[in-house]
């Protein structure tokens, strides 16, 4: 009985609070006499989580199919059909979003921001292609990546790029990867998604400049095959590492290579390793190379320090990409902008009741992250550069024609050029 009484009391109290609050409404809700029925606002559901897992399943299926096509079936034709499917499904149907390349940023942010919730499906998109690359090579690039697919299908008249240009361009994906992680980890921006040149085409909708960029990439891609993959793709860096040590990589020849050279021009990506003439390897050249190799090996710490120093010095400039830092800085350097009613960011900040000191503290925290991040990023890029230069003076032993396991996209073009029959 007591319980019921207390409940009634509580109910009364609640309704009192409710009506007291309601009375503060400027215009109370009318009581209709005409039998008007008030509609309720609709809340259309987002795409279900189950569908997201279906995407993971499709990715898994496509990856398996691509690996089978490259390694077992050895069929270029099959690969073309598969990449067409990928282009339609992950490209035009899923509109390029949820993609392994962009997932790097989610994973990076999850490590640096404890408040960030990483979706398991995104983690799966990040890990699956890398695991496959570790066993089968970059079959993701060949068949499961919509960005790769759209570029692969328009390779019309690829030209061979001189090796020094290629090796220089090899450095850029590392830069892109490094900056993407820096910007994601500091909670500044997802540059991979923002500057994805093809997502505008998949969505048939993007800022004018991004569509232009996408079309420019496609046009360039007719001659310089897969420009995004080779010069920019940050995920390609990780795939390259995995694929370099892959267990079963696609081979050009189904049996023993007869060094007929027929496959040499078949690769639009210059990813075929050509046999090295052993006769050129004299004792003096070996010694000279070894000397240079050791010199550049010793130089690596210098590169690391120089890179770290340079980028940590650039942290003030880099951190301006962060909206909070930018706002704080502009308010300090141009206080007169506070009266600029056109500047939405400044006006909203002034109205928000947040104090200038709070903003500056927040901005300083982010800027310090950039300084620390600059050291790591610069050091990493210095290391990569140092290793790349050092590697110029390694003596490779190459006896047969085979794909460069790191750079090869496993697109299976070269397979059709090989005259060797499979041993029965």
């Amino acid at each position, binding site marked *: 009985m007591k319980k019921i009484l207390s409940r009634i009391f509580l109910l009364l109290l609640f309704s009192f609070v409710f009506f007291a609050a309601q009375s503060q409404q400027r215009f*109370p809700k009318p009581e209709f006499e005409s039998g008007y029925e008030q509609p309720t606002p609709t*809340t259309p559901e*987002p795409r279900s989580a189950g569908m997201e897992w279906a995407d993971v399943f499709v990715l898994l299926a496509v990856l398996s199919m691509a690996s089978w096509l490259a390694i077992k079936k050895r069929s270029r034709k099959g690969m073309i059909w598969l990449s067409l499917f990928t282009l339609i499904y992950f490209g035009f149907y899923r509109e390029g979003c949820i993609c392994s390349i962009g997932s790097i940023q989610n*994973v990076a942010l999850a490590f640096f921001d404890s408040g960030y919730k990483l979706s*398991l*499906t995104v983690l799966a998109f990040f890990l699956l292609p890398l695991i496959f690359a570790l066993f089968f090579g970059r079959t993701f690039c060949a068949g499961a990546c919509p960005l790769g697919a759209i570029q692969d299908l328009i390779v019309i008249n690829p030209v061979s790029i001189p090796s020094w240009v290629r090796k220089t361009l090899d450095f850029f994906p590392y830069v892109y990867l490094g900056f993407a992680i820096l910007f994601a980890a500091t909670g500044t921006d997802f540059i991979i*998604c923002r500057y994805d040149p093809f997502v505008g085409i998949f969505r048939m909708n993007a800022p004018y400049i991004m569509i232009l960029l996408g079309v420019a990439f496609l046009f360039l891609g007719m001659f310089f095959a897969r420009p995004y993959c080779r010069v920019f793709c940050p995920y390609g860096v990780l795939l390259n*590492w995995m694929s370099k040590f892959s267990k079963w990589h696609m081979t050009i020849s189904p049996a023993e290579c007869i060094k007929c050279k027929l496959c040499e021009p078949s690769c639009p990506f210059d990813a075929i390793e050509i046999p090295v003439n052993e006769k050129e390897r004299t004792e003096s050249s070996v010694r000279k190379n070894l000397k240079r190799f050791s010199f550049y090996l010793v130089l690596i710490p210098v590169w690391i320090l120089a890179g770290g120093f340079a980028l940590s010095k650039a942290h003030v400039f880099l951190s301006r990409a962060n909206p909070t830092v930018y706002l704080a800085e502009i308010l300090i350097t141009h206080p007169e902008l506070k009266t600029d009613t056109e500047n939405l960011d400044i006006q909203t900040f002034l109205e928000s009741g947040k104090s200038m000191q709070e903003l500056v503290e927040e901005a300083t925290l982010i800027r310090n992250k950039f300084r620390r991040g600059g050291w790591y990023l610069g050091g990493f890029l210095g290391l990569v550069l140092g290793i790349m230069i050092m590697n110029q003076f390694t003596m490779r032993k190459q006896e047969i024609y085979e794909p460069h396991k790191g750079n090869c996209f496993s697109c299976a073009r070269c397979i059709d050029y090989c005259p060797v029959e499979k041993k029965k």
Partner: protein
Amino acid sequence: MAENKKLDRRDFIQKGARITLGASLAGIGIAAATKASAEKYVWQIDPFKCTQCGRCATDCVKNPSAVKCVHAYDLCGYCDLCGGYFKPGANKLETGAENQLCPTAAIERRFIEEPYFEFIIDEELCIGCGKCVKGCGAFGNGSLHLQIRHDLCDNCNECAIARVCPSDAISRIPASQAYIIKGNFTETQES
């Protein structure tokens, strides 16, 4: 014999590197999985933080924007002189285009009974500019507010309007709480 040895060494390096890479991949995977959530995340506008700057209409990757005005009828005063519908200083309280605040005439004004009018948002026409929201908030009860409509939203990895939102009103939340529909006035008071 020497050839064999060399091959063995190469194999060994390959295998060692493969195991190292595999292990680090597993490490990253497990470490990330501890921070992961099985739930799907979507973008949401908090109407109590929103300042109707108008960027939802211009910066969303969808054109027209996936942000639409939502009418919380519970809050509506059904005013004849609706601050969300009419321009300040409108000539007449009628549906002429010159009187309307909405640039796309996406609000339908329907007579119910003296002196009440119902206002209905046509989402096909709404561009999410928030002009009506601002008007309703300034002169009325604030029953109009902006929400991301999840049947239209692409759920981009990084929401383009979240990035430019000056009031940090847009955040990532579990899909089970995808909407904040202003209910009754008490909620407004609480927050």
